[in-house]
């Protein structure tokens, strides 16, 4: 296991991981996005899940990253409005319709 002072989240590479049965905090943190994206192989995902559920440092960290991803999705999909585009499309469609007559 790793030291207790540092919170997880310092991993700089998404690659790698150990082979033993118990994951360290670093190993779990390295898989954080793949885990949250549902992209880990089932056995690896299960290992991460088991670690995070029982770890008082990783549990809030994983929740934090999940909140971040949800937030990016919600805000990022915000529609945008353009009167110029609307006018342009209306003109285009009118032309198309005229040509099809």
């Amino acid at each position, binding site marked *: 296991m790793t030291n207790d002072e*540092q*919170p*997880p*989240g*310092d*991993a*700089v*590479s*998404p*690659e790698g991981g150990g082979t033993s049965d118990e994951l360290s905090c670093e190993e779990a943190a390295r898989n954080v*996005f*793949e885990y949250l*994206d549902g*992209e880990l192989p089932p056995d690896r995902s299960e290992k991460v899940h088991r670690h995070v559920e029982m770890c008082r440092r990783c549990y*809030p*960290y994983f*929740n*934090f*990253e999940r*909140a*971040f*991803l949800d*937030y*990016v*999705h919600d*805000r*990022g*999909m*915000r*529609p*945008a*409005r*353009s009167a*110029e*585009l*609307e006018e*342009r*499309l209306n003109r*285009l*469609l009118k032309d*198309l*319709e005229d040509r*099809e007559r």
Partner: protein
Amino acid sequence: MSAKHREFESEALVHMDVLYGLALRFTGGDDAAAQDLVQDTLLKAYRAWDKFESGTNCRAWLTTILRNTFINDLRRRQARPAPVEYDEVAERSVYPQLHEEDAEGGFFDRIVDQEVIRAIEELPEDFRVPLVLADLEGIGYQEISELLEIPVGTVKSRLFRARRRLQQRLYRYAVEMGYIR
């Protein structure tokens, strides 16, 4: 007005704002390019309208056309892609810096929408496009890899870096605004 035209208006044109928003994210906030992209998308949809099954998800159909149109164009432009600069410092989670103050990431919600959108749109294209595909559109790594013709490992690392950059930027903004210390 023809029946086709009426139908197209009520089923497809109503999604214009969603398409334009997505187009802006894809093009990095380039208004002219985003407008062209929406126009190309709707033009293709109009021409293929008899292939669209009324009652099925028109928005999903249109966003797929938009995505494919953008990516085809991207591939043409990126025949010789510029190398991406890697900045290790910007690629850490902000969590260690604020876990004592805001472990649940409540500060994100205080950031105005426009700032988030600007932060996404200003990411370098190589990072922005995988992020838009994965985090906005919810597309999986394998499909992104096929769409962008890059290995899954590259999708993973670009997405990782895109998210870290975005998070760091929003964190700096929140500190500047006094939302967090």
